[in-house]
């Protein structure tokens, strides 16, 4: 049993404390925008925000984040208005298969919060998500567009 605060709501989930946050979000809370890609914090498809910081949810347990503010892709839009990163993503038509994009967008939203005008080098250092389709140049374009929005 754990109380998870996800997208502003406190949800009581019946899972063991050592359950990876990713699986609690997907299977117990039922939010499937956060994706499973590797389970070993390599690919970033499962990135969410924990107290505003981008984290790979496959690599943290429910016990470690109980009571903390967790935001998933479904909670990124505030008050029905899409986040500027999402808007930039749509404007640049970034996704191909789209499977990695929830995690990519969450990683970028966290980056812009910390560094509102990242340089290309800053992007290279901060964004380490895998995209097998190879959307990187649209990702980069959209990050700059969101930063300037």
């Amino acid at each position, binding site marked *: 049993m754990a109380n998870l605060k996800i997208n502003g709501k406190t949800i009581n989930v019946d*899972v*063991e404390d050592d*359950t*990876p946050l990713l*699986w609690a979000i997907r*299977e*117990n809370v*039922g*939010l*499937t*925008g*956060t*994706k*499973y*890609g*590797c*389970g*070993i914090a*390599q*690919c970033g*498809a499962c990135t969410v925000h924990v107290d505003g910081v981008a984290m790979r949810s496959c690599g943290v347990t429910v016990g470690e984040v109980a009571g903390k503010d967790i935001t*998933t*892709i*479904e909670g*990124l*839009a505030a008050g029905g208005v*899409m986040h500027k990163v*999402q808007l930039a*993503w*749509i404007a640049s*038509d*970034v*996704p*191909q*298969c*789209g*499977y*990695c*994009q*929830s995690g990519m*967008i969450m990683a970028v939203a966290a980056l812009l919060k910390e560094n509102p005008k990242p340089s290309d080098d800053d*992007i*290279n*250092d901060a*964004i*380490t*998500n*895998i*995209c*097998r*389709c*190879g*959307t*990187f*140049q*649209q*990702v*980069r374009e959209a990050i700059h567009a969101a930063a300037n929005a």
Partner: protein
Amino acid sequence: MNQHVMPKLNRRAFVIGTATAGAGLALGLDLPFGGPSVVRAADGAPEVNAWVVIRPDDTVVIRIARSEMGQGTLTGLAQLVAEELECDWSKVTTEYPTPGQSVARKRAWGDFSTGGSRGIRTSQDYVRKGGATARVMLIQAAANEWKVPAAECKVSNGVITHAASGKTTTYGKVAEAAAKLEPPADVKLKDPKDWTIAGKGLKRLDTVDKTTGKMIYGIDVKLPGMLNAAIKDCPVFGGKVKSFDEAKISGMKGVKKVVPVGDSAVAVVADTWWHAKTALDALPIVWDEGDNARVSSETIAKWLAEGLDDEQPAYVGNQNGNAKAAIASAAKKVEAVYSYPYQNHATMEPMNATVLYTPDKCEVWCGTQNGEAAFAAALEASGLPAEKVDVHKLMLGGGFGRRGMTDYVRQAVAIAKQMPGTPVKLLWSREEDMQHGKYHPVTQCKLTGAFDADNNLVALHYRLSGQSILFSVRPEALQNGMDPAAFQGVAQSGEAAIGYSVPNLLVEHSMRNPHVPPGFWRGVNVNHNAIYMECFMDELAQAAGQDPLEFRRKLMGKNPKHLAVLNAVAEKIGWDTSAPKGIYRGIAQVMGYGSYVAGAAEISVTDGSKIKVHRIVASTDPGYVVNPAQVERQIAGSFVYGLSALFYGGCTVKDGRIEQTNFDTYNSMRINEMPKVEAVMVPSGGFWGGVGEPTIGVAAPAVLNAYFAATGKRIRSFPLRNQNISFA
């Protein structure tokens, strides 16, 4: 190991093989029902024809049979239909007919297979006709209502007008009447130069849901009462389960059942996948690994190397003149041996399928590149007749060829069959996905070139040794034992023809099929053939003391389309001007999937081993470009996929199994390693080529040839990490 032998075709292998490729439906399946003539859309709107449904509010639903896996085909096909339909693009949505519906209507939607870069090029004709036919019927319905000749009516953006009477109506208002009309026998398609919707870089139709987390992929399916399954197949391909100790895990939280899957795998079914996986990891399984457990990358490499010997039998795929004799008497001879490893598709979404089986019905929900192949697999695995089976296609989290195979569908049905009435979602762990791929095949190639005294290339002998995909996947497609696809990119003619004319040419393949299952991996055989040929062309140019571009140009006089794309990249990268200090260039070209492509790279190299790719230019002539924005993305994505494989990829075999288990051992490029790709589209018209795959062929050789320019070193075995070469 099968050594260069003709496979025995028993009926079972034949049906399975063809089912995998999607053609199985045509074989021996007597379908007992005709199906309704009009299929209502989910909300009850009528279809004008198989491709077009129009709702009373003028929303246009375009049916798409091919699968969207990121490549943009969904949007491109919708553009082609909408172009002929003359509807309002802002009102277009799409839906997938199910394979069951298609079969019930005598394959009304044609081929579902989405591979070989065929999504658009091999259905463009009939989907455009579908749009044009619907347009004619809609106009006719309005004309009938107004009692005027249809020829006097015009349509634009879904609004029909009759100028003389000033009457106007919309598609939504006449769709019901149009659906009852006889379709015209023949329709004329627009000249692509008059296109206003097709040919434009319109936004994708699926972007918004992919940025909000709302898009439902196979892995996201939820059904009432659904359970979840995790699976372990014998890590040695061809091995079997000897025993498993269910008692050890039956008390673990959430576990409902432990089931055998075929004779080689075990699955744990639990309330959640995490519980299923945790229990599966704790399940003691004893494998009968069989003789394949003795195979390693080393034993495979040794066996393939033997196939490079001219004494060994080989299939001839392309020849003119007498290459062996010309080489024997040549003034100068150059020889090199290359090899290319196994590669995993590593789609971001691991394999999965959800199945609800009852004795009366088997329904499958999954991402698949071939709905009909998934349908055929479900049919066979369930044992039910066609009218009791269906497949609901969902968005694919990557395909790259992997999801054209149906192993995961077959497994999911086998599991669900042991739990009738309960929907079960089978999801592979990343580790299972890495170790049970359908791998890019392994090959080696010995290339020999010969020059006359004036440094003219007089002979080329291209001897390939290694694995055939068709031998394993579609043995019925072999031609007297020969795999014609093995010569993709170096064939005499057709959709993957060689671009060079050499007076004496011999291209041959010694087929050697290790036990590791091969599959169609983005680019398929074009990948290694382009690397071997284009790197060796650079070697030949060097031996002749000529510029690599000029050397190629002299051999390409009879292949103007190949040459045109090569010239286009050369111009764009500035080949005639010297590169900035410390920057080195490489160039390559190939034909594949009916399209002509070329690429050029600018790189710098630090300490001889750290590569930074500064610039990539790529040119393609696919005949027609349906959506330039998506073509540009496919070109760039091909470089990411191809260079990831070149630098980081390579699946190795030890004790009969694949050693790589996750992205820590099978890495993929990140944003910091990838420059912008400058795409140059030069569609010359008159043919329809594919886009998703051909460019990958030039990705690796463009960079490798630049690496030689920078260092004077040729790399002939991959991935580069094995040579301690990495991204800077």
